[in-house]
C-alpha cells in the first residue's frame, strides 16, 4: 500500500525544495545516523536550520502545502501538513559548534535524486554525549559500534581489499 510507505516522494519533495531554495539546513539526530547505516529507530527526521526566518523555508513549505507553526508556550516551532509532519525543527544542537562550523564538515548523502546535507555520525555521537538524556545514553553504544563498522568498511574500500 503506497500510501502507508514512510518517507516517499512527498517528504523528499520538501527536502528537494529546501535545497532548491538554498536554505541552510542539515539532517541531524537518529535519522541522520540511520542514513549512514546505524541500526537505530526513530519517529521523525530532525532538521537543523541556520536561520528559521529564512524566506526560503516559507517558499519550500508553500510548494508542498505545508506551513510553519511558531513556538507557543511549551511547544517548540513545528511544521504542519501531510508533507512535513515527519520533520522536526532543531534550532540548537548540544555539544557542537555553531551551524556555520558544523555545515562545513557535514556529509552529502544521496536521498533519491538529490543529495542532502547530513551531520556526520561522529558529531551525532558528540551531541548525544553532551545532552545526557537517558534515551540518548541508551543509544550511544549502538552508534559507537556502527561508527566502528562504518570506519572499518571505509578503510577496507579505500585500500581496495
Amino acid at each position, binding site marked *: 500500500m503506497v500510501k502507508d*510507505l*514512510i*518517507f516517499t516522494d512527498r517528504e*523528499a519533495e520538501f527536502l528537494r525544495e529546501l535545497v532548491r531554495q538554498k536554505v541552510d539546513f542539515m539532517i541531524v539526530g*537518529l*535519522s541522520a545516523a*540511520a*542514513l*549512514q*547505516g*546505524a*541500526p*537505530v*529507530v*526513530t*519517529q*521523525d*527526521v530532525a532538521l537543523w536550520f541556520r536561520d528559521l526566518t529564512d524566506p526560503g523555508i516559507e517558499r519550500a513549505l508553500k510548494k508542498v502545502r505545508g506551513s510553519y507553526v511558531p513556538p507557543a508556550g511549551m511547544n517548540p516551532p513545528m511544521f504542519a501538513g*501531510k508533507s512535513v*509532519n*515527519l520533520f522536526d525543527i532543531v534550532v540548537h544542537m548540544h555539544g557542537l559548534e555553531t551551524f556555520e562550523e558544523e555545515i562545513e564538515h557535514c556529509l552529502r*548523502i*544521496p*536521498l*533519491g535524486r538529490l543529495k542532502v546535507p547530513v551531520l556526520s555520525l561522529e558529531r551525532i555521537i558528540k551531541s548525544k554525549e553532551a545532552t545526557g538524556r537517558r534515551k540518548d545514553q541508551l543509544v550511544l*553504544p*549502538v552508534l*559507537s*559500534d*556502527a561508527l*566502528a*563498522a*562504518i570506519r*572499518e*568498511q571505509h578503510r*577496507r574500500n579505500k585500500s581496495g581489499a
Partner: protein
Amino acid sequence: MSKNAYYSLARKETVLPNSIIAIAGRLGVKPSSFTDEASLEADKFTSLLEELERVLSRHKQADRENVRHTLLLLQEKPIERLRRALTRGQRFDFHRSRG
C-alpha cells in the same frame, strides 16, 4: 508449451545453453554455479560474516549484533536505511496519527 517442445526438452540432459556449459568447463566449476541464486546469497552472507569477524577483532568491545546489523544496512541505499528506521520507530508510536 507444445507437446513437441516439452518432449524435446525432457529428452535433453540439461536445458542450460551450451555457452554456459562451455564457460563453466573452462573455469572448472559446475554450470549450476552461474544460476544458483541461493549459492550467491550464501557467498554474500559468508563474506559478511568474514567482515563481521574482522571488525570485531579490531573492536573488541563492540556488540556483535550492532556490527552485523550495520554491515547489513550498509548494503542498502541510504533512503532504504532511513525508511527502515522510520517504519520501526513509528510502529511503536501509538499516539501519533499520520496522514
